């Protein structure tokens, strides 16, 4: 009858922690793979429009980013709600685009890429076209003709 003797409580085996490193590594790897390093902090709203006839920008492409849109909520007190341009991590005026473009080419990408560099316009979908026309005019004047309207993948009726 001793077979059914109640085991004494308080003798629970310790939980093995042998797999803890595995879990930690797993998390580490996970975050390592999904993290994309964002170059700039967005100060403007970045709700990009949708499009489905798109071409992807390669990692090897030389890309210069220009952001535009309404200032984000926390900057609205200071900068208002009119759409603005953001270069690097500062609000900027249209007239600063040329300098920014050449600076990026010379300091970050390399001068030899001047003719192949693509200017990616990351513009919020509620922005007025007037601002974009101004940006395009600036880019035309410095012969930065390759541009990319960055979009999200999706049907256009969501715009």
């Amino acid at each position, binding site marked *: 009858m001793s077979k059914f003797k109640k085991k004494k409580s308080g003798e629970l085996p310790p939980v093995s922690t042998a*797999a803890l490193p595995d879990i930690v590594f797993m998390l580490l790897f996970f975050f390592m793979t999904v993290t994309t390093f964002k170059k700039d902090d967005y100060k403007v709203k970045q709700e990009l429009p949708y499009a489905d006839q798109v071409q992807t*920008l390669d990692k090897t492409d030389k890309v210069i980013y220009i952001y535009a849109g309404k200032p984000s909520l926390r900057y609205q007190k200071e900068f208002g709600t009119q759409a603005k341009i953001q270069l690097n991590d500062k609000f900027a005026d249209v007239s600063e685009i040329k300098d920014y473009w050449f600076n990026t080419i010379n300091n970050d990408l390399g001068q030899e890429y001047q003719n192949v560099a693509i200017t990616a316009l990351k513009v919020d979908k509620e922005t007025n076209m007037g601002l974009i026309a101004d940006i395009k005019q600036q880019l035309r004047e410095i012969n930065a003709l*390759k541009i990319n309207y960055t979009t999200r993948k999706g049907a*256009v*009726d969501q715009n």
Partner: protein
Amino acid sequence: MGRRNIPEVNAGSMADIAFLLLIFFLVTTTFEVDSGINRKLPPMPPPGVTPPIIKQKNLFTVLVNKNNDLLVEEEVMALGDLREAAIAFLDNGGGTNEKGEPCNYCKGDRKEDSSDHPNKAIISVRNDRETEYGTFISVQNELVGAYNFLRNREAQNLYKMNYTAMDSIASNPQTSEQLKSDLKEKMEVIKEMFPLKISEAETSN
């Protein structure tokens, strides 16, 4: 019988579970890649040069007003019909190109009052300064869609492959150089048949 210690929980398969999860996340995570509509801006015209005059029938005008309504060839149109209309215009082939060759691959209606040749056909998008960017992108997307449709059709005829598929293979960095140059050559042929001519004219107020 004496008291027995409960054996320790076997943790040997914990690693397997961890790897399973790791692989699960690896497979399900989508990597954010920047993608969008590529465009080439027109260079600044040299001073003193007047732009060439384009025949009205070779010009497909899309006007977008500040309320984001579309006026296509002087008629109000819904965004959903734009692609069809653009395809009909580009594919019309009513006349000849500069060299006097007729468009023998066009399958359009060959109307007198529509474009002569895909080579001559120009789509002009004009928008108000207050047009929303989202609408502008929708319009551009539909127009690129029209070109892609026609290019895919010809690419299927010639190479049994979609133009858009060729493009995505050619822009993939893992593709071998030889395949890339081969595809680029084929794409040039297709581009020659339907050159992308979309003008984003200066905004009208």
